[in-house]
């Protein structure tokens, strides 16, 4: 470096600066002739420096753009200033080997000894283009209509799905206000919401809890769901809206709601029917029973011996019917008498059930065992009914001559208690386990065991409908029956909330 003038030193600095720049540099004069290139330019275009100097710059431009290139060049020299080349256009470079590649170019005017020149800083845009390409593909293949807008609410970009959903071509949408996609009456409000969004842009659903409506080109409106995400770009802050047409889902929702309503209504009607039917059956039955009693009294000694038997059949039939009616009423009353739930001691419940069954227990010399049962959250009258039925079943379905024993055990689960009522009776064949909970299902003849077959149906209703529990039976014939049921260990959420 010694012996260089300060001018020479400066020049060598500039040279080093240009050579080491990350972008390719090409200096041309007003005729388009290349005056200077740097190392990057050689690498980028694949030429030796000597092959470029003195050549027209169009050598670096693909054939198809060359025709107009000099026109742009001339116009630049007419008004030279630092700017991007071909704003908004795709620019392409041509390598020596004939391959093309996307480029970004910045231009700046330079005054040299050769007059007005222009320096072009050229950058390979291949990887950026690829990124854009991927973004575009992503957008195009998205299942939702994607609408990108700027802070002014103008549509910047839409995808294919947007065209399908809203019925516009993308050309008809880009540059328009996004409000074109919503019903007129909602547009003003939307514009103010849009401004609020850009003031605090986050990823979120639009209009939480609101019914959002879109508007097709043909004016047809349809329900939509929208997710918003902010997007920072060179062009400013944008927002991406993913719009989903939920017409079908709304229809399905409506249908499901209607089914649920119908089901609830028909259940109510059925319960009402059971109540009214059983209620209205009582009066005629009473007349039959009472008048057959009176008739029998009048006939004593006047008619055949057969008559006694006939009267007995009438009486037995009536009594059975009376029991059935009473049970149906009880079953339908479970729904009607839903009293508020509270803490209930299952020990007290078992005590009460046993005292109701005192006569049977004594008659059969039965043993009912339980101790330290927990408190549950429920309705005590129903729970007494439950245990009464289960204990009485355990005593009733017994082998002749054997002392009935019913044991109640329990264990705590996470938020409920599981109870087991275990008897030493005849048990239930494994293929009948599910049937025992059906209304009026009897597994035995009336001669074997008395009953209407409603007890376990009632238990199921009490446990599963009134206490959100579960009831099931485990048994094998001859080894007794084990009825399991679960009850809440405390109030559930909505009850805690004071329902």
């Amino acid at each position, binding site marked *: 470096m010694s012996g260089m003038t300060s001018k020479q030193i400066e020049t060598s600095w500039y040279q080093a600066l240009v050579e080491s720049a990350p972008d390719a540099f090409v200096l041309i004069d007003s005729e388009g002739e290349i005056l200077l290139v740097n190392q990057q330019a050689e690498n980028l275009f694949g030429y030796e420096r000597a092959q470029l100097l003195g050549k027209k710059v169009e050598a670096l431009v693909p054939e198809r753009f060359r025709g107009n290139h000099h026109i742009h060049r001339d116009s630049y020299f007419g008004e030279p200033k630092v700017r991007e080349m071909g704003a908004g256009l795709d620019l392409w470079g041509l390598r020596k080997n004939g391959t093309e590649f996307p480029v970004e170019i910045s231009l700046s005017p330079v005054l040299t000894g050769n007059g007005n020149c222009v320096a072009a800083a050229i950058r390979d845009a291949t990887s950026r283009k690829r990124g854009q390409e991927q973004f575009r593909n992503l957008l195009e293949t998205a299942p939702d209509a994607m609408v990108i807008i700027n802070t002014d609410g103008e549509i910047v970009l839409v995808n294919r799905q947007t065209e399908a959903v809203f019925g516009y071509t993308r050309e008809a949408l880009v540059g328009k206000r996004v409000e074109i996609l919503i019903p007129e009456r909602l547009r003003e409000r939307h514009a103010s919401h849009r401004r609020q969004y850009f003031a605090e842009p986050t990823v979120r659903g639009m209009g939480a809890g609101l019914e959002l409506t879109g508007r097709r080109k043909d004016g047809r409106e349809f329900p939509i769901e929208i997710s918003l995400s902010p997007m920072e770009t060179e062009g400013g802050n944008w927002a991406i809206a993913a719009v989903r047409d939920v017409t079908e889902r709304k229809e399905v929702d409506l249908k499901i709601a209607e089914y649920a309503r119908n089901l609830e209504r028909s259940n109510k009607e059925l319960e009402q029917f059971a109540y009214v039917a059983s209620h209205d059956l*009582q*009066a005629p*039955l*009473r007349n039959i*029973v009472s*008048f057959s009693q009176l008739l029998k009294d009048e006939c004593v000694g006047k008619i055949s011996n057969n008559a006694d038997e006939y009267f007995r059949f009438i009486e037995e039939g009536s009594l059975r019917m009376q029991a059935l009616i009473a049970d149906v009423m009880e079953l339908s009353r479970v729904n*009607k008498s839903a009293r508020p739930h509270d803490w209930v001691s299952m020990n007290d419940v078992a005590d009460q059930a046993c005292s109701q069954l005192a006569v049977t227990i004594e008659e059969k010399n039965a043993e009912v065992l339980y101790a330290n049962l927990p408190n549950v959250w429920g309705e005590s009258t129903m729970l007494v009914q439950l245990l009464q039925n289960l204990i009485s079943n355990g005593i009733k379905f017994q082998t002749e001559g054997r002392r009935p024993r019913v044991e109640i055990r329990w264990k705590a689960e996470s938020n409920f208690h599981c109870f087991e009522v275990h008897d030493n009776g005849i048990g239930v064949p494994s293929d009948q386990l599910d049937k025992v909970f059906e209304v009026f299902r009897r597994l035995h003849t009336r001669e074997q065991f008395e009953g209407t077959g409603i007890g376990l149906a009632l238990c199921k209703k009490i446990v599963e409908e009134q206490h959100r529990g579960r009831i099931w039976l485990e048994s094998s014939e001859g080894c007794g029956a084990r009825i399991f049921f679960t009850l809440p260990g405390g109030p559930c959420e909505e009850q805690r909330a004071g329902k």
Partner: protein
Amino acid sequence: MSTQSFAGVARSVVIVEDDPAALKLTSLALQRINVNWDARAFSAGGAALQYLRDCGDCGQLPDVVLLDWNLPDLHGRDVLSRVRAASGELRGIRVVVVTTSSAESDIVEARNLGANDYLVKIPDFCAFQHSLGEVLRAEVASPSSWPGVWRAATSD
């Protein structure tokens, strides 16, 4: 069981009952209680209410009203509440609700509306007759009419 003493006093009773068979049973039961009951029957609530008002106007009210609950025209609850809302002596007349329903809700409602007693029409005639006798004897024996002592003879 069937002979219950009413000290031979002539009593009057109004029966409101739309089912002829049930009316027959109530009448038979009254006969068998072995008292000289002057019974007058109505098959509709409206007519019975009118009759009772007329009786009240001339100061000749019956001792007891046996009131069916599920009446087709004017429901038993309406008859009862209108009686209790009436002016004069009618307001205090003894009313016994007689019905097939043993539903707790019906019993509670009848009591709240001011029934003196509640009698279930059970199938066993002898037991019904016995209960009816008990109820009537208690009613007649009680010094005041309504509100008297609530007994609700619902079980057989």
